[in-house]
């Protein structure tokens, strides 16, 4: 086994354990008022009554017998679901359910296909969130990396200093905040972009028209996301590159008379890339939660808007499911970047 694989296995093991703990924390928090139990019991009762009501034999029974039958079935189901167990065991059942993405049934919300399974509702919307925010994050990172390099080259110039200020300023503002200002400016006053949604209603029938319509709707949330996040990338890049630039080996390379671009790419960027990737971890993790409200503001029908809908109708299973899925997404993001980090950082290959 190479050092790299050993390192990766160790990291994945640690992070998986962390994921389990994070999801367990969610389960415990959601359970503290006995809220989830009550919800599950209500759901089971509802399902039993619905099933029995469809049965013609049930309708002829007297009220007392009906009650008794419901109670018997209810208790059996409660037992089967482990709801009569003490909390530590019950929480373990819920943890397993959450980890296997067995997220239960939504209280009110339904997927476009009519399913009320939480996992289906979430899966249906996940690609749309990924489309908007991965595109946005890739664009922002490229722009930020480029600008950060330019800043490092002309460190402490007027351009550099105003970019730093811009970066810190946009770093503290959430994207949704720029979103509402941009909607007011670009879509209400200038009428350049639609104020929200993913496609027009009704959407164009031909695939090309559909794609163009999608792009048209994607533009403003994308611009907002890039605007709100590229500053952080440029700032991180600038600082790390500057730090590497002051190292002796860079000075030596310069002294040897190597062309400045070669020094930048071979001698500066290569060692600077692992810490930049670390910066990426925070930016991407940030983006998953930042997506919630940004989507809601732009009416983008992804996970964020689902979150808002679930808040409005108080659909707790969907909210808990979304929290679990977000934890998973962050977990996968961190692992992916860990792999990139390990490949980039030569020290890991040697020491493990």
């Amino acid at each position: 086994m190479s050092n790299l694989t050993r390192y990766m296995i160790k990291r994945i093991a640690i992070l998986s354990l962390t994921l389990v703990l994070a999801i367990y924390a969610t389960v415990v928090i959601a359970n503290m008022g006995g809220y989830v139990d009550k919800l599950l019991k209500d759901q089971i009762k509802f399902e039993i009554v619905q099933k029995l009501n469809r049965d013609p034999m049930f309708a002829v029974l007297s009220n007392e017998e009906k009650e008794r039958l419901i109670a018997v079935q209810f208790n059996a189901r409660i037992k089967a679901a482990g709801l009569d167990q003490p909390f530590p065991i019950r929480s373990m059942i819920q943890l397993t359910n959450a980890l296997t993405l067995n997220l239960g049934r939504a209280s009110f919300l339904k997927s476009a296909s009519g399913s009320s399974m939480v996992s289906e509702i979430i899966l249906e919307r996940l690609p749309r969130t990924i489309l908007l925010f991965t595109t946005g994050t890739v664009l922002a990172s490229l722009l930020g990396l480029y600008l950060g390099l330019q800043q490092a080259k002309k460190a402490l110039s007027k351009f550099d200093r105003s970019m730093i200020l811009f970066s810190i300023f946009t770093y503290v503002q959430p994207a949704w905040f720029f979103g509402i200002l941009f909607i007011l400016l670009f879509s209400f006053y200038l009428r350049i972009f639609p104020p929200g949604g993913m496609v027009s209603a009704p959407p164009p029938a031909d695939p090309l028209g559909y794609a163009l319509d999608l792009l048209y709707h994607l533009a403003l949330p994308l611009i907002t996301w890039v605007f709100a996040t590229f500053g952080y990338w440029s700032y991180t890049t600038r600082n790390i590159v500057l730090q590497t630039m002051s190292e002796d080996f860079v000075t030596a390379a310069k002294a040897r008379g190597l062309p400045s671009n070669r020094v930048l790419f071979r001698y500066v960027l290569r060692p600077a890339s692992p810490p930049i990737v670390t910066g990426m971890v925070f930016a991407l993790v940030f983006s998953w939660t930042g997506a919630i409200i940004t989507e809601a503001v732009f009416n983008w029908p992804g996970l964020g808007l689902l979150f808002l809908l679930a808040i409005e109708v108080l659909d707790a299973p969907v909210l808990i499911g979304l929290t679990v899925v977000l934890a998973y997404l962050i977990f996968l993001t961190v692992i992916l970047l860990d792999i990139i980090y390990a490949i980039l950082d030569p020290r890991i290959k040697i020491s493990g």
Partner: protein
Amino acid sequence: MSAPPTGLKQVFREVLRSKTGIIGVVLLLFITSLALLTPFIAPFDIAKKWNDIQWWSDNPVLAAPSWMTIIMPDKYSTTIILDEFSSTTTQQGDIRITTHTSSFRYSFRNFPSEIKLVLDADYEVQKPQIRITLSRPDGENIVIFQGLPNKGENIVNLSLDPQSQDLIVSYLFSNFGVAPSAVYPEVVLFAVKDANMNDRMKASVLRGIYRLTIDVIAFDDRTEVRPRLYVYGNAFGLFGTDAFRRDLIVGIMWGAPIALAFGTIAAVVTVLLQVIIGAAGTWFGTRSDELVQRVADFFLIIPVLPILILVNIIYGINIWALLGWVILFSLVGVSSKVARSMVLQIREEQYIEAAISYGASKKRVLFLYMLPRMLPYMFALIALSAPIYIFLEATLSFLDLGDPNIPSWGKILGDAYEEGALYLGYWWWVIFPALMIILVSLGFTLFAYSFDKVVNPRLREE
């Protein structure tokens, strides 16, 4: 490059020497003094009434700031309130006829947004009969209300009241022979008399002196009717009003102490905790360092905002409980990483070695020799985190998950978004609270930047 100053006082002096530092401090001072003044200008019981829609009913709905009447006098008008009337009374047997009259000048170039009539009535048994006529500058007399009031306050919104609308329709019908299906009393009453007088776009405003006559026929001695007329404009106050007629200045002013208190307390506590935990972890050895790193992984993976939303929905917490939860989820974070790298750097220095050599305990070295060195950095981190927490509160309030009892900037923005202010162009409802948030975060940002510039040699200007 000179070495960065280490004493807090020196750092402050240097911060105040830079332009960005001064602007940042001035902005923060401005917001702080606004926050301190707020309780005197707008007492807290006004803020508590924020959610009491009845309390704001005398204000115009969705009015722009009143200074818009100066910038665009053609489009904006303020509210005219008519509450002083001269009365004459004649007795005819058992019946007493009182006539209240009053007049006002309407000189705006646009139509009122609404007209509201308030009748404070009292009587013994039989309701008095009331007829209200508006006499216009062109000599037209239009009956705008006819009816029997109840005891107490009777509020008649002429623009919405079907009976008053019928009166206007019959006026239009007798003059022009048409009975429009939708009638706008606030336009008709103040329009030059022609066939277009029910059309806000085509009609022109009739300016001049209007007189209101209220005839009250009373059947007993106790009967008394006090009228009030509101001719609403579309501009009000310094920051305008929202869809619930709330004076936005109250919410915007109260947003300042709330945002500042929440942001600074959260920032100070979390940065202190994160720095102490991060520094201690590294300082006390590999095992504790490893532990802190793993806890950092945990806090990285746990989705904080969704969990805060969940907690909020399930338990319906107030702003102080929210603060507690926020702190709980920020025990380890970015500041711990900064502290870690600083400890790695500082522990190599000679004065630490000296302290250890004369027998100072690890704890003593950490708290008396290392943490004070990090103080300036902590200030920068606090200044950088404060706006993040201010925005966290704003974000939750935007989703209507903040403390329900107090107005905050995020809540105002959330209401504006909910009511479609972005798509209908109620800019004042969005711009002013947004501007306040920007001012605060800009203040903190500039402050943090100039701090960073002093303590972080890589940013220093020569």
